[in-house]
């Protein structure tokens, strides 16, 4: 069958994408790793249509055939980047590309045939990933201009350097390692790009051997990264690195401005070794070089006792900013504080001077509730923010030793920020990580037009 129309979920610009119909389904990565429950991870399908009788319920799921994958981040096979002036518009947003962070296995899941009964159509085994790319422990997925890009935390031995591999858009074959000249880049985590300006930016967490068995305080000195790297997207060569404060560790989520004419974006720092604060940095291009400055700092809070073992030496609750997300109009930045249990909303109309305009408290360390707000996903119109509560299995167990029951909530963000009391998804013993919204969301698509 030859389609007369291309994928209707693709939009040339973020402004046009904001007018897209609202999402009806959410896909959520759910995992049992670290829970003691001997079950397979799954992708849950959540009804997010307020008019539906099954609103806020799990209405479908696809279970992975193997145990221990640790589903984490995932993405689409294709997105609005296909509409770039010389892109390949023949693609369609049909498959979820779901890597296992612990297993390095990649699942290709068809959600078009029956969106509430997704089906695995291809499995790329870890052996193939490692043989063809040299990488393992797969993280971020982005639908790129010439293929599907996936970041990896390390090599097959669990050491560095981590990097990026590329899958073929049509066959999903592993094409190989992306970098040609990485310079001194060693740690890896997230990545994104500005397509018209041919710039990729990557961030740093730690290598698999450092992170997989839990956070060790002695590793905070040198075992975690604090830099971001800028790359020539075409020549696959690192062009500049920036250190985001010597005392800071774990530069994680990268949120470039969606407007491609703006060469800037945000990145979150999870922890300062000086005072356990978290921060958000703005990176921007000026005077023919990349620059960065701290624009948000969130201090640690005094504890009233009942701290997990890892925090007892400090007697403080760190905010642990582990995720940030930028609305499609580049106006609001949402910040999750997994430690102190807050979601914050900042007006970043002036990105150098963000203004706190909303705040919601949901759980947190010592609150007696299960977990804290962690992964964020904003709807394309910017009116809703979906939140889940698991970070990473072994780290979940350290910071929330009482255990985490997976949940997903919704925040109304049209005016200020408030929790929608009618929306609560309980995943039971499974933990919930990344959310992807049907048709796309604020962290899934890249645009070429302003």
């Amino acid at each position, binding site marked *: 069958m*030859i389609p007369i129309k291309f994928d*209707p979920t*693709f939009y040339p610009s973020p402004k046009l994408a904001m007018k897209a119909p609202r999402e009806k389904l959410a896909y959520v990565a759910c995992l049992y790793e670290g829970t003691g429950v001997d079950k397979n991870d799954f992708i849950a399908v959540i009804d997010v249509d307020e008019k539906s009788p099954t609103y806020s319920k799990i209405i479908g799921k696809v279970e992975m055939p193997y145990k221990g994958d640790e589903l984490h981040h995932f993405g689409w096979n294709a997105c609005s980047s296909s509409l770039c*002036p*010389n892109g390949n518009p023949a693609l369609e947003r049909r498959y979820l590309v779901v890597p296992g962070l612990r297993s390095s296995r990649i699942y290709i899941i068809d959600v078009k045939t029956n969106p509430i009964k997704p089906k695995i159509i291809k499995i790329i085994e870890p052996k193939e990933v490692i043989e063809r790319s040299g990488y393992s422990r797969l993280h971020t997925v982005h639908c790129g*201009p*010439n293929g599907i890009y996936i970041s990896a935390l390390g090599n097959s031995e669990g050491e560095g350097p981590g990097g990026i591999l590329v899958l073929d858009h049509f066959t999903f074959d592993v094409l190989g390692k992306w970098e040609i000249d990485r310079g001194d880049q060693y740690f890896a985590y997230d990545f994104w790009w500005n397509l*018209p*300006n041919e710039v990729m930016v990557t961030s740093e967490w730690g290598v698999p051997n450092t992170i997989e068995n839990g956070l060790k305080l002695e590793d905070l000195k040198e075992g975690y990264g604090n830099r971001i790297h800028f790359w020539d997207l075409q020549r696959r060569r690192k062009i500049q690195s920036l250190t985001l404060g010597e005392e800071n560790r774990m530069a994680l989520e990268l949120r470039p401005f969606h407007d491609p004419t703006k060469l800037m974006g945000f990145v979150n720092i999870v922890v300062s070794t000086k005072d356990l604060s978290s921060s958000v940095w703005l990176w921007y291009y000026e005077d023919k070089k990349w620059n960065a400055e701290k624009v948000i700092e969130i201090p640690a809070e005094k504890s009233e006792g009942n701290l997990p073992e890892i925090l007892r030496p400090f007697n403080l609750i760190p905010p642990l900013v582990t995720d940030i997300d930028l609305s499609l109009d580049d106006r609001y930045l949402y910040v999750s504080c997994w430690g102190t249990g807050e979601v914050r909303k900042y007006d970043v109309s002036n990105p150098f001077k963000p203004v706190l305009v909303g705040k919601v408290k949901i759980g947190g360390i010592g609150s007696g509730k299960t977990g804290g707000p962690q992964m964020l996903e904003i709807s394309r119109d910017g009116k809703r923010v979906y939140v889940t509560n698991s970070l990473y299995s072994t780290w979940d167990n350290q910071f929330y030793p009482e255990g985490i029951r997976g949940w997903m909530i919704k925040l109304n963000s049209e005016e200020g920020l408030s929790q929608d009391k009618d929306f609560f998804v309980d995943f039971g013993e499974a933990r919930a990580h990344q959310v992807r919204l049907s048709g796309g969301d604020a962290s899934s698509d890249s645009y070429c037009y*302003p």
Partner: protein
Amino acid sequence: MLLLILTAILSVIEGINIYKGILFSSYLIDFGKRVQGLVFILVTSLLPVLFIFFSFYVVVQSELLVLGVILALSYLPKIILWKYYHYSGNYIPSLTNAMKWYVMNYIIKMDFILPMYISLIGLNYLLVFILAGLITRMTVIIIIRNFKSIFLKIIRLNLPQVENLSSAFVILTLLIALHYSI
């Protein structure tokens, strides 16, 4: 007259396909390169001229019908393998970059065969083909720059395939017309 009309139709079909140059032109304008964007429209419309000299050296007028059938048949793989007839390159908003990737895809898709063939029918037909294409492209870019809702609708149409299918149909009609006019 019929041949001229059919030639003009072929050019309009190609001109409406915004994936053939117009998108890049609009993109250049978005990045503040208005003149380059308009020059690019001219380049994409005049590109066929580069290929017509070649056609006079390799073919003779008497083989027009045979070549026409080959031309029509060349659309078959284009229709079947439409997804793969493309290389994205990169998206740097500059005129030279746009030209590089446009010409590259022009060759990959063998888009030069159609104007070559039309030039063999007669240079006046080629002139009609080029002018109709230029006017269509200019019209489309003015419309999509001013009406974002039309831009959104048109960018989502599978215009490459619409062009393949309708061109194949018009070429077959042209062949029949040519057969009876010779």
